[in-house]
């Protein structure tokens, strides 16, 4: 039985089918990537999973719990985490306070406990030195890491990452890949990654799902996807097979 399961999810905006009957299933500790051209419905899928958008049809289950219509904060308390496309840390709180907001996911924790948990996450992600800094003093890459730390402090079982490498330089992307690998090794968090950086996707993902015009056009291991003719014509491009990325 999979941990996160979306069945026949559909969402229309007027005449446009943003998602038509898309299935997604993520097992415990699994790393799944969702790729596809811009406008394929990747972000809409994340929004349906997190409850920011309610689907017109289909069901979303988290460990057997039907959360199709549940409020976002309840899903988060149930073990779903997410980061946003351009990073959305709370600008009026310090780095530590941002992460403490996430650690407060369980009620009844003392301030000291919240602080220690937040520091542990920051430490693990290499941000402990910036704990007291205001968000505005951080670089773009660091801000995105703060958001990641905040999501991790919520102790998710499934973490949805919306283009975490966008806007990062190649050294930062390498670092991100290392941290994600480490995270999975330590905590067995299942990860759903939306990303255009194919090098990163192929290195990390165990399974890849390809969306185009709101439909799933392929699903399989990285090597299967790289040689799938439908994927090559819709997204990767015919030259991809020979580029040897």
């Amino acid at each position, binding site marked *: 039985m999979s941990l996160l399961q979306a069945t026949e999810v559909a969402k229309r905006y007027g005449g446009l089918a943003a998602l038509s009957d898309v299935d997604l299933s993520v097992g415990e500790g699994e790393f799944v990537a969702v790729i596809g051209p811009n406008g394929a419905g990747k972000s809409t899928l994340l929004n349906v999973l*997190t409850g920011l958008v309610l689907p017109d049809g289909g069901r979303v289950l988290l460990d057997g719990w039907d959360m199709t219509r549940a409020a*976002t904060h309840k899903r988060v308390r149930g073990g779903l985490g997410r980061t946003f496309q351009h990073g959305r840390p709370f*600008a009026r709180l310090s780095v530590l306070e941002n992460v403490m907001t996430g650690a407060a996911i369980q009620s009844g924790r003392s301030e000291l406990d919240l602080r220690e948990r937040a520091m542990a996450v920051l430490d693990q992600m290499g941000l402990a030195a910036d704990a007291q800094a205001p968000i505005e003093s951080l670089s773009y890459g660091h801000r995105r890491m703060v958001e990641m730390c905040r999501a991790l402090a919520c102790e998710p079982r499934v973490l949805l990452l919306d283009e975490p490498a966008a806007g990062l330089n190649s050294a930062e992307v390498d670092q991100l890949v290392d941290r994600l690998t480490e995270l999975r090794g330590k905590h067995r968090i299942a990860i759903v990654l939306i990303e255009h950086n194919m090098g990163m996707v192929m290195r990390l993902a165990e399974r890849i799902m390809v969306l185009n015009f709101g439909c799933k056009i392929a699903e399989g291991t990285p090597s299967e996807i790289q040689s799938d003719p439908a994927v090559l014509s819709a997204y990767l491009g015919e030259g991809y097979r020979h580029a040897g990325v």
Partner: protein
Amino acid sequence: MSIRFPLLLGAFILIAGLGLSMMLADYHLRLLNLAVISAIAVIGLNFAFGYAGLISLGHAAFVGAGAYGVALLTTLLAWSPWLALPAAVAGTALLAMLIGVPLLRLKGHYLALATLGFNVCFSIVAANWIEVTGGTNGISRIPELQIAGHALGNERSYLWFALVVLAASATVAALIHASRHGRAMIAVRDDETASSMTGIDVPRAKLAAFLLSSVYAAVAGGLFACHMRFISPEDFNYAHSIAYLAMLVVGGEGSIVGAILGALFVTFLPEWLRFLGSAYLAFFGLFVLAILIFLPSGLAGIRRPASFSRDGRIKTLALVGASREARQ
């Protein structure tokens, strides 16, 4: 932040206030009493506006609900003021809950207009429900507060009592600010979607900020009724709501120290500028404008780093409010 800052803040208020109470003459003591009472209301408004970003233009109605609650319970039912005060605060919180659940579904300017409408309704009811509120004649002969048989009859003794309440209010507010609840309110103002994605129940955090703000307003209203011993609908019309907002913006929204400084400053400014005569309001309008432009984080921001930048849109609204007040 530990428990140290809230306690220091409370202690500082008590010591500074005590010092002032020894130096000032009766008339200025009266003003200081009014400023301290306003400061309690403005600390409350800071929860809704400064932290959670809820633009409330109906704060004076909650001050009025607290004041009328105390006045009615003490004059009609002959309750002791000590019993009437908590009852009026609880009643106001209930009112805020009934108003807040539907109104807080609105955002930004819509919420501002709806709360303004609530304030106007309050004034109309207070002025026209003559059998209960006495209409525009108001309610007089509100009994004075007594502590262990000693009446708080003069300005100085009342000020001491009001200072204790202010110190306690500021300490509690600072403790909430530094808690998960304070962080949740601030997060909600920064980004509602990201807040819900951090497990924060956004509607609940907003309602909590709104309720807290109404409780502080009701405490201020109760103190006002016991201090003036006479209240009328004019004391709580929407111009007062805008004045509270101006105090918070001048002092520095999002800051408890700012709320107190703003209340003091805006209460005493007319005294210092008496020589301007009727040109005062025009000056006040320009002064608030200057604060918004040159000191966007208010008086309390003079020592704060510029990194605490502000939301320009909300500023503009406060500015419109201030100019409206200046026109009256």
